[in-house]
């Protein structure tokens, strides 16, 4: 967090937010969380957990049925217009007029925020260039690829230069190269002081980008802590070892569970505090040569699955660190 934000109110305070839809579905059951200024915050959860409802309320597309949210101290319920000036939203679904040109889409978006046309044109050029869309700026948006459309929504969300940028699965269905360029852009604006809230199903994305995390399931926050602290709770790790030859026999190593998944592949499940030398010594003594090694699953993914499954066994449990 930058020093400039020390005296600022939190970027976002969600206070006992509730939403029950007309069909009786209780999408949010009293959600509370806080995001500090300058944070890069992950909001994770399985499909239907309540992420989009929460984002919908923050962006005023969904009316809450209880509680409130404050953006830099400004109430979304009571001071909607002032709160919206502080937020930029990149929604999950493509939601611009595909018959318009990207430049016009950006200019119009700025106009909706009261930004004069001349300044809007400067910003549109700046952000379309930064997101490598300038060469498409004056073609119809429908002619762009899926990845370009997603980048256009980021450029559009930047037109009011928000203090809080909310990205709802911005990289869904985007190839890795474009995804990386989007990460680069988003980390850049975060470094420049913009608070970022990210929802994603790519958990390695959340792990590598975000400093703090909340996991929501069935309309309840089941975890809210720092990424570092959360990952530290993972006490067991599984490694996949590719061997140069088929082993005749597997060694027995205290505290490490070894099993073969195919002729030349082993999986070793071990406590995180245990050193790898013990494993390699045992393998070397057994005449087994390791060609390469990798972790079996993304660490955050493993934790996410555990937390969600655990939360479902204990409905209504809420843990906020």
């Amino acid at each position: 967090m930058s020093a400039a934000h020390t005296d600022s109110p939190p970027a976002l305070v969600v206070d006992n937010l509730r939403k029950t839809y007309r069909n009786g579905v209780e999408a949010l059951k009293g959600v509370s969380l806080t995001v500090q200024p300058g944070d890069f915050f992950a909001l994770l959860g399985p499909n239907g957990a309540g992420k989009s409802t929460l984002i919908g309320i923050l962006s005023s597309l969904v009316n809450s049925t209880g509680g409130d949210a404050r953006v830099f101290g400004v109430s979304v319920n009571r001071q909607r217009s002032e709160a919206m000036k502080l937020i930029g939203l990149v929604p999950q679904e493509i939601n611009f007029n595909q018959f318009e040109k990207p430049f016009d889409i950006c200019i119009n978006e700025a106009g909706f925020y009261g930004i004069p046309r001349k300044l809007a044109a400067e910003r549109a050029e700046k952000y379309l260039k930064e997101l490598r869309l300038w060469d498409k700026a004056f073609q119809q948006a429908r002619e762009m690829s899926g990845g370009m459309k997603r980048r256009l929504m980021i450029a559009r969300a930047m037109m009011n230069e928000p203090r809080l940028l909310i990205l709802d699965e911005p990289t869904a269905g985007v190839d890795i190269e474009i995804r990386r360029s989007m990460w680069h852009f988003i980390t850049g604006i975060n470094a420049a002081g913009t608070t970022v809230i990210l929802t994603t199903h790519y958990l390695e994305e959340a792990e590598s980008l975000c400093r703090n995390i909340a996991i929501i399931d069935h309309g309840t926050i089941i975890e809210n802590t720092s990424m570092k602290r959360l990952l530290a709770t993972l006490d067991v790790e599984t490694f996949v070892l590719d061997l140069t030859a088929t082993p005749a026999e597997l060694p027995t190593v205290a505290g490490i569970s070894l099993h073969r998944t195919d002729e030349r592949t082993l999986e070793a499940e071990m406590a995180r505090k245990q050193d790898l030398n013990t494993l390699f010594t045992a393998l070397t003594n057994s005449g087994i040569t390791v060609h390469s090694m990798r972790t079996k699953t993304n660490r955050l993914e493993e934790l996410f699955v555990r937390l969600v499954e655990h939360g479902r066994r204990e409905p209504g449990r809420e843990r906020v660190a």
Partner: protein
Amino acid sequence: MIRSTNLVALYTVARREIVRILRIWTQTLIPPIITMTLYFIIFGKLIGSRIGKIEGDFSYMQYIVPGLVMMSIINNSYMNISSSFYGAKFQRSVEEMLVAPMANWAILSGYVIGAVARGLVVGALVLLVALFFTSLQVAHPLIALAAVTLGAIIFALAGFINAVFATKFDDIALVPTFVITPLTYLGGVFYSINMLGEPWRAISHANPILYMVNAFRYGILGISDVSVGGAFVVMLAFIAGLTMAALQLLRRGVGLRS
């Protein structure tokens, strides 16, 4: 100069609407000209020549021109706003405005300005076409202008409300087909209600389009079946009622926010 957020937003919506009308001019401006030209040829020239004078010294062609101009204005302002706003809902681009700090009145006014602009441009083009078929002297230009403007606003507001409630494209075609078209044909476009017997003449007074057509006809020809002052009161009352209804729908987020 400090520029108000809402004024810039209003300008943006209105400009976008007008750009849209011009971008698809073959769909927005040309078809009504063709339709009205056919009306002038068939009703004005072919049938009208056998009708003779109506309401004094006016040829039937002269008599129906104000009605047909108002009819094209009503239809085009209604269709413009209902298709554009429902299209924005369908593509979800309406969310661009809903998440912005702009006020509901700015959204509504921007769309209404776009619809009125299309209505008035089409009306002017229809009037120009009419001059190929007959001569017209504008009796009261300001009253004529006020009548078409208020008529366009009324049907723009009605089209907006239709689009708010619409959940599929069929829904924005229902009202023009089953409500506006019958009311237009029965609203004194082609005849004077003085030609009707009771109770049809009295019933005709319940048709809001009658007041618009006659206010405009008074502005162009100087004749009207109804009190012109009364017609403006009716139109202003409709505008007030429809504006309040549209703003209330936006405030509650009906069809727009969950």
